[in-house]
């Protein structure tokens, strides 16, 4: 079902709520909020057609700060709540705001099932690799060995990589962005908005209080060009300060190469295709991490596939047209009945 467009050009002010934003100064969430407020007018739907849904955590306060319809749920359940919103009211553009704890710990089950079903919702996963609102316990994405309040001798768990979960659940859209790069954040969010189906964007987000600089191995100003590979559809995978490095597929794995060395030219590089149904290369791209590899950013996977909601509405429509039971009176009198 089509979502209604606004008849007038809306602005950021139309979506700014009257609530005081209570995130810590310097928190990465501010940049994500600014990006969302910036793209909503650009997407063009009516103000009333957006619906923000969240769970629990710092990032889950998001709906209060956007002047749309919004629902602040309970811990881990944003995906399930959003599922009900979208099935009940398919004319809404549904946005989930969730953190790494909310999405991949307590809400992990809902997260993978939402993706598996290809529910038509947008999912912003704020990954700061820590529980912030409860003040600094390790999450499923915290690095192994890290000292936190609940891991005084170092985290024993192996971490989740959210991208792998998306691929594992045969997700149709996965992208990665960074909170300190507003322009690319906006671009990735626009791509997410255009996608039909569950679109997950993992934002590497900094928690200045409890996990400061957790992403600095890829975000540090001095090395970021060598540690970030920004993917563009149909273009070879090139990165590095002087754009001298690239990614090749060698046998069944990826490798970093230097362009110009050992006869390597741009033509030898892997060309990005986010639209391939097979998750193999997308999975490898999502897995890349320093120091051996750069981390992949931008749209890693964007595959066309019927959404849960498209199939659902088609069934509803066909059955409404063909069924002999048109109202509850018909139902009550169907089958074996008799007069007394």
């Amino acid at each position, binding site marked *: 079902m089509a979502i*209604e467009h606004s008849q007038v050009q809306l602005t950021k002010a139309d979506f700014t*709520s009257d*609530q005081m934003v209570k995130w810590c100064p310097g928190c990465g969430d501010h940049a994500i909020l600014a990006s969302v407020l910036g793209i909503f007018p650009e997407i063009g739907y*009516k*103000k*009333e*057609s957006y*619906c*923000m*849904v*969240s769970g*629990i955590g710092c990032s889950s306060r998001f*709906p*209060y700060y956007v*002047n*749309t*319809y*919004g*629902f*602040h*749920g*309970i811990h881990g*359940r944003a*995906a*399930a*709540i*959003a*599922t*009900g*919103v*979208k*099935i*009940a*009211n398919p*004319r*809404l553009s549904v946005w989930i705001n969730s953190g790494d704890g909310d999405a991949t710990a307590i809400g992990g*089950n*809902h997260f993978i*099932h939402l993706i598996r079903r290809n529910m038509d919702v947008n999912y912003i996963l704020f990954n700061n690799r820590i529980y912030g609102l409860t003040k600094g316990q390790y999450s499923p994405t915290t690095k192994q060995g890290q000292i936190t309040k609940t891991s005084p001798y170092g985290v024993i768990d192996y971490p989740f990589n959210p991208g792998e979960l998306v691929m594992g659940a045969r997700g149709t859209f996965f992208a990665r962005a960074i909170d300190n790069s507003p322009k690319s954040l906006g671009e990735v969010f626009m791509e997410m908005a255009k996608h039909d189906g569950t679109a997950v964007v993992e934002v590497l987000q900094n928690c200045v209080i409890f996990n400061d600089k957790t992403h600095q191995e890829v975000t540090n100003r001095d090395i970021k060009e060598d540690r970030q590979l920004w993917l563009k559809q149909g273009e070879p995978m090139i990165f590095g300060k002087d754009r001298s490095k690239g990614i090749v597929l060698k046998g069944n794995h990826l490798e970093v190469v230097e362009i110009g060395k050992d006869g390597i030219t741009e033509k030898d590089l892997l060309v990005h295709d986010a639209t391939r149904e097979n998750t193999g290369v997308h999975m490898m791209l999502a897995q890349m991490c320093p120091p051996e590899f750069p981390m992949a950013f931008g749209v890693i996977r964007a595959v066309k596939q019927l959404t849960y909601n498209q199939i*659902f509405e088609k*069934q*509803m429509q066909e*059955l*409404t047209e*063909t*069924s002999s*039971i*048109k*109202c*509850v*009176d018909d*139902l*009550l*009198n169907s*089958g*074996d*009945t*008799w*007069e*007394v």
Partner: protein
Amino acid sequence: MTTEKLNEKKGVVVRFVGDSGDGMQLTGTLFSETAALDGNDIATFPDYPAEIRAPHNTIAGVSGFQVHIGKRIYNSGDNCDVLVAMNPASLKSNLKWAKKGSIIIVDADTFTDDAIGKAGYTNSPLDDDSLSGYILIKAPITSLTVEAVKDIFTDKRSAERSRNMFALGMIFYIYSKELDHTDSYLEKKFSKTPDVVKANKAVVRAGYNFCENTDVLQSQQVRVEQAIMPKGRYRNITGNIATAWGLLAAAEKANLPLFLGSYPITPATDILIELAKHKSLGARVFQAEDEIAGICSAIGASFAGALACSSTSGPGLSLKSEAIGLAVMTELPLVIVDVQRGGPSTGLPTKTEQADLYQALYGRNGEAPCIVIAASTSANSFYYAFEAARLSLEHMTPIILLTDGYLGNGSQLFRIPKMSELPKINPPFATPNDETYAPYKRDTETLARQWAIPGMEGLRHRIGGLEKLDGKGSVSTEPANHQKMVNLRAEKVQRVANRLPDQKLIVGDETADLLVVGWGGTEGALKLAVEELCEQGKKIAFTHFNYIMPLPKNTAELFNKFNKIIVCELNMGQFVNYLRSNFETKSFLQYNKTQGLPFEVSELKEKFNQILGGK
């Protein structure tokens, strides 16, 4: 068919038992429907194991179906007049349900040494005098079935599938019923396999004729009195189907899409299965990944403007607790159906109990009142499901509807209502572009907040699980506001009592020496027990509760008319303690049972007689 000079009976109980897979549920259903078409009132109850196919011929694999037919039927009956046992294990485990002197029909062919041993007998009960107090009919059902279809099926396996039809034919003879309904059922069901239709019809007749030629049964032929029922169109319905249809009816009357978010769980799954069929009626059914997702999706759907429901049983209700609190806090309409089963934990999944009442009333963190109501018959589950939706939608608060395995799986005659007879449902919708709209602005009479549906113009707002400022609905941690909101949420639920019907006596009058009190699925047995004692001249009365939180406003007044009150329930005293906390000066006796079984009329009468006699 000979119909003259037959014994007449007001009511009879037939219990069909066999291995799961022997087709006992179908046999029972066909018999009950035939009786209904023949003018009897009916009630049925399946008694099946938790295992799908336990080892053949073992007690664990026994599946049963009890049918009560007659003139005035309130429950599926205590003990049976005829027990049909298709193998030794089913005889062994069900003999306790047979009345003294009743007819016991066994398939004699199945009493092999092996099967007798598996059932736990040392000797064949057919050969010693252990069944001498009964009219034992040793029918070679398997071999006569094979014989009856020998021209249609040559392989024994196909032939033996119709054994249950032989038993059905025997019962039809004993209760002098026509075979037409079964014929037409078979023709419809197996229209693509005419051989199966032919075979089954032949076997039903073989069973019927076998009895006609058995001397001892000729004198046992009985005519069951017809029921006197209000005029109207009738059908047979189980409590779970009635619940599903009640929700559909409410959605139509409220002009809202119905959303069901559920996870399969015994004995509630049939509600999910039934509603999944009705996309043509706008039912938006979502089978979730777990119980929590089921209710959370329903809360999302409610926020987005649907009549939202989640159906479950006890363990599922436990998992939903936190989310119910969210619905209390966000003051959204939500119907939670709990088809209760034996607990705690996995407990007795296929058996009935009423032990989730405390959970429904109190099982949430914080001060989190919900409306709680209970259906009391399979058929009235339709009306209480409708009522649950109506109260929830018009009062903007979650409601828990309690039914149980006995009501859900049991069936009864249902007088089909016309949708025009049901009340319209009017949720308190907000008006688009209303500049005075605030999410927690309340109706002064009901205290319900307005419902602004996402998509409506000029009403954008945010709600959630954090405490809300009254009126405006923004997040608030103000101490005085929290107290006010706790009070308002409680008061909102209490005010539902303003529109509830008075609690009435169902049997007896105010002069009775003893008032019997029940709630939920026990109504049939309690009513019959009290009626029978009244007919014997005992001074006893009966009232039954469907509205539990809040209670009808005249409850205290009604109780004050009686010196002795006994509260009967299938738990260890949850409703009686709830009444004690509400009416501190009143004293209540209690009668409780937790065996996974419904009340028997005989045990109730014995208990009531004891109290009446001892005064």
